[in-house]
């Protein structure tokens, strides 16, 4: 009897915890949607802000966000994938080099995003950008030594590097070792084995890694605060050396620095909702992919 009571309460309490979370999620989604529904129009999505951001749309912010994640992926995903291949296929744990890389990836995953921002500022904007300016124009013209799309993308690429690496490594490790041994025992070389056996059996995993990274990148604001994002720009970025607007930052400035926060509340909600939808679409596809991989492994 006592057993039954304890058992019942254990299950009840843990179930409540789970449902609390679900409730929060639904509540937030609902609140954001309802709060922004009024302003969520096609026009909102396709026009630029106006009236000192008191009205208008968020088109430049959407474009900025998309550009950011695009450039970021182009920079980061190949590096992450190759690193993952190294760690999973070539690395020999005895080598100092391997331990070094593994350690670096683990550490990178834990570095706060704001520190990445600092790093981007110190390294890309000032050091690299400054160096480039000096080289290209002799320091006469200020082109690269200031926050811009490229530096923000670089910073973001590094931020998301461990996300890519970890999930690609997971995908590669999920390829059973027996398959590698089979291939090698048939006289295949290592690279042949990777190309013909390992990669074909893990491309969904690699894709998942990429999408997860993009999803993470789309939502992060802290790293771009001082590496490229702009409060307001009259026109869309024309080159990598331009600054850009960003949905997340847009929400932040409107909510904290707008002259009349109350008046733009609807816009804020709508913007937040759009950002959420963007990251969701990305995350959701990653989740679906990952489930498909897992069920394939369990088989």
């Amino acid at each position, binding site marked *: 009897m006592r057993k039954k009571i304890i*058992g019942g309460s*254990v*299950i009840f309490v*843990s*179930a*409540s*915890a*789970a449902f*609390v*979370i*679900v409730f929060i*999620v639904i509540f*937030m*989604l609902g609140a*954001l949607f309802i*709060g922004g529904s009024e302003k969520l129009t096609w026009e909102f999505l396709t026009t630029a802000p106006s009236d000192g951001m008191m009205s208008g749309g968020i088109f430049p912010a959407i474009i900025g966000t998309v550009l950011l994640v695009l450039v970021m992926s182009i920079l980061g995903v*190949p*590096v992450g994938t*190759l*690193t993952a291949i*190294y760690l999973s296929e*070539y690395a020999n744990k005895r080598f100092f080099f391997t331990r070094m890389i593994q*350690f*670096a990836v683990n*550490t*990178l995953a*834990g*570095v*706060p995003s*704001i*520190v990445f*921002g*600092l*790093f981007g*500022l*110190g*390294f890309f904007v*000032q050091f690299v950008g*400054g160096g480039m300016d000096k080289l290209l124009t002799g*320091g006469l013209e*200020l082109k690269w*030594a200031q926050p811009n799309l490229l530096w923000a993308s670089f910073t973001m690429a590094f931020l998301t590097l461990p996300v890519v*690496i970890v999930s690609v490594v997971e995908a590669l490790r999920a390829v059973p070792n027996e398959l590698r041994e089979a291939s090698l025992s048939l006289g295949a070389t*290592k*690279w042949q084995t990777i190309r013909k056996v390992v990669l074909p059996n893990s491309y969904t995993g690699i894709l998942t890694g990429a999408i997860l990274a993009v999803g993470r990148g789309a939502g*992060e*604001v*802290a790293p771009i*605060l*001082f590496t490229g994002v702009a409060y307001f720009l009259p026109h869309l970025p024309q080159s990598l050396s331009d600054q850009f607007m960003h949905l*997340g*930052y847009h*929400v*932040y400035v409107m*909510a904290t620095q707008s002259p009349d926060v109350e008046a733009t509340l609807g816009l*804020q*909600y709508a913007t*937040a909702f759009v*950002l959420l939808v963007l990251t969701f679409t990305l995350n*959701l596809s990653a989740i679906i992919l990952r489930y498909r991989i897992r069920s394939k492994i369990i088989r």
Partner: protein
Amino acid sequence: MNKFSRNIDQLKKKFRLSEFLAESIIKSVAFVSFAVIILIFVFVFREAIPIFYSPEEKVIDTEQEFIQETYGEDESTLLLIEKENKKSLEETDYEGEVTFKNLAGKEWQPVSRNPKYGILPLIVGTFKVTMISVLIAAPISILAALFTAVFATKRLKEVLKPAMEVLSGFPSVVIGFFALVAVATFLQNIFGYDFRLNAFVGGVALSLAVIPIIYTVTDDALISVPKFMTEASLALGATKWQTALFVVLPAATPGVFAAILLGVGRAFGETMIVLMATGNASLMSLDIFEPVRTLSATIGAEMAEVVFGDTHYNVLFLIGSILFIFTFALNAVAEFYVRQKLLKRFRGES
């Protein structure tokens, strides 16, 4: 003898170009991650180091750098004003501005006439918010993980798990925004405290970012407790909850511990949420209903307005270094200690 030589030929080593190229490229690229860590280390600390030099040297140093490298003419006036400020400061007898004593001070007033760089209140604030968030997030997420991993039926799992994943996909700025515009008022109405934005609101908001982390890692640890262990317990006549509490959870403790550590790390370094939801006043107090300013929020809020190369700038980098070192240490513990222990446990070495 004839046969012998033929065999040797057959087995003789060959040079394979594609093999060589692939390996070289992959190895070099793999080095990038390490390079990045080193660079972060170097470039974050580099900007913090000048604080530890004497003020005069430093000022001149940065001044030159700035004028030459970064700022265009428009802003030089602004710079001048700042420089005036600084000089006047130096003339006042505030010589210890960059000593440890100053840094260890209880006041953070970097932009006043008399800048004070006491980061203690920031540290206290950070810990306060972190504590609150983890204390809220840990129980909920661990229990939730236990529920989904052990008790829930397959159907229920199919509903619950995606919900958790959705939460982990919430951008922090959205959570911050939500806390700012909705949660803060809501909580104030319930608890009736004075400041709408405070450590508690920040902690609550932050817990929404921490829950998915603790949940995911705990869930992983629980799920990776092999099914045959559960079966063994049930076959001995244990009930489901006995199995959960006495077999599954203990087997996963190192994982749960790691989950909490990772949660702390996330809370500690999180910027946008605290920036938006804590009120950002650098008060030195233990009252959770007072506004606080955290280390990360300080950087986020002030870096944009700071003069590159000045003391404030350097101190912000110093704060960045502190964040870096702390999360680094936390991850190291979670990663090495806890994972080793978990592995050992399942291999039977402990």
